[in-house]
């Protein structure tokens, strides 16, 4: 089982990103679940969502304590949350950031998802859309296939720019 924890702030699309990722994994012929963790958070507060991907049906409902991968949609949550907590050694980290950061012992990647969304003017209620470009980045990291990523995005969004930003993130991410 491959377990992913997504860190974001309420309203940034972390829950939708989890859902897109699970849907793409299902299109890859795998089993997947996406579960937001509902606490007392509100819009703007740090939140986490969980995605599990496996070859067999997933029976675990409890929170992910030792993820194989951590995705950070908003690097500012790293000031208040230890995003690497419990991450398995050698685990993957994907951060939405222009700046490269290094964490010893982890396979680290960064890509400017915010910049990509702004370039395409993919902004809703003043917030750049991060949940569709991040799926492109995750496809580049081999978590899901590109075809399934695009299929999942098209099933959930009619605006083709969502596919475009995913493609841009795929191109720009260096692994």
């Amino acid at each position: 089982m491959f377990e992913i924890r997504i860190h974001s702030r309420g309203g940034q699309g972390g829950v939708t990103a989890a859902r897109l990722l699970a849907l793409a994994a299902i299109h890859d012929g795998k089993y997947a679940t996406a579960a937001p963790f509902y606490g007392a958070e509100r819009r703007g507060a740090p939140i986490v969502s969980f995605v599990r991907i496996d070859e067999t049906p997933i029976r675990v409902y409890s929170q992910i304590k030792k993820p194989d991968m951590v995705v950070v949609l908003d690097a500012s949550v790293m000031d208040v949350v230890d995003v690497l907590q419990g991450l398995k050694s050698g685990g993957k980290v994907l951060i939405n950031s222009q700046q490269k950061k290094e964490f010893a012992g982890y396979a680290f990647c960064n890509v400017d998802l915010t910049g990509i969304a702004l370039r395409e003017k993919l902004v809703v209620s003043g917030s750049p859309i991060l949940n569709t470009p991040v799926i492109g980045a995750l496809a580049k990291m081999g978590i899901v296939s590109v075809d399934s990523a695009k299929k999942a995005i098209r099933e959930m969004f009619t605006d083709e720019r969502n596919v475009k930003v995913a493609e841009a993130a795929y191109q720009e991410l260096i692994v």
Partner: protein
Amino acid sequence: MKKIATGNKAVAEAVKQVVPAVVAAYPITPQTEIVEQIAEFVTSGELKSRYIAVESEHSAMAACIGASITGVRTFTATSSHGLLYMHEMTNWAAGARLPIVMANVNRSLGPGWNIWAEHTDAMQERDTGWLQVYVSTVQEAYDAIIMAFRIAEHHDVLLPVMVNLDGFLLSHIMQPLDTIEPGDFIPPLSLPYAIDVTNPAGYGGLTGPDQHFKFRWDIERSMRDSVTVIEETEKEFAKRFGRRYGFTENYRCEDAEIIIVSLGTLGKETEVAIDLLRKEGIRAGSMRLRWLRPFPDLSLLKGKQVVVIDRDYSFGRGGILATEIVAQTKEDVFSVIAGLGGQEVTYEDVADFVRKRRVGTEFWFGVNANV
């Protein structure tokens, strides 16, 4: 069709397939998504139902009763305090023999205010004459709602059915969902004693001490008959749609010395604990109870060491499921109280309950003592 859906969305999708004439509901966390989605289906014309946005849960059930008594299919959904607010009317629905189907998203009762999963809400409706089933996956929630209509509307039953799904853990998780076309699996509803609104008449007269007990016995007789109806319905569902359910879902029980009994999503988490325990050489199995009413025959538990996990409690008595199981098997159990108000319970915790079992005692998880 391959989809991904939350438990709530799956319930709404199932309701769409069955097309109740009337849906009357009031929103409450974590059920809200169900009624929002149904309202959207009605607004878009995808679902040809009358949606009644009532002012309370008591009214929601009253509206379902009023509609159902004219011989039409009805549905509602609620949770927690909403369910308890309906309590007078849930008794009425069963007493009037109305095949209303309700989704209850299990949530704890305040205070202290808490919106997370617990089964005490549904357990407090245990003695109302409603059938109760507890589900553990998004797919099962969908399938159970569809089957609930067929079971409730069967002339040997004619009792309301409550489908229970864990708040957030199941209502808000996204899992794969295969939707179906039920076709004549759900035949048109025909109530034997529907009120004809074009020919008004008075009903509901006093039933005196020489009559009332007969109506009560008739509910019990139908509850007993519902066992066969449930079995036949689940068998027919499996034949047509390929997914088989039962009164319990048993996992690695064949050669088990210890059986863990639980409800809802904890039953799935427990299966993972079983795999863990088996690796340690502990011969454990999991029994996930699906139907609480009618209460199934649990003779499989005879002679085993039984660990019961209750995500509910009856103050001054004990875990409600544990109490029911002891009453039936006449054997002691290790009663674990865990997951109240959404308390996190992992498969590692469940494995630990088994390792530390002391049959004949009660253990409150997180309280650090057998009490």
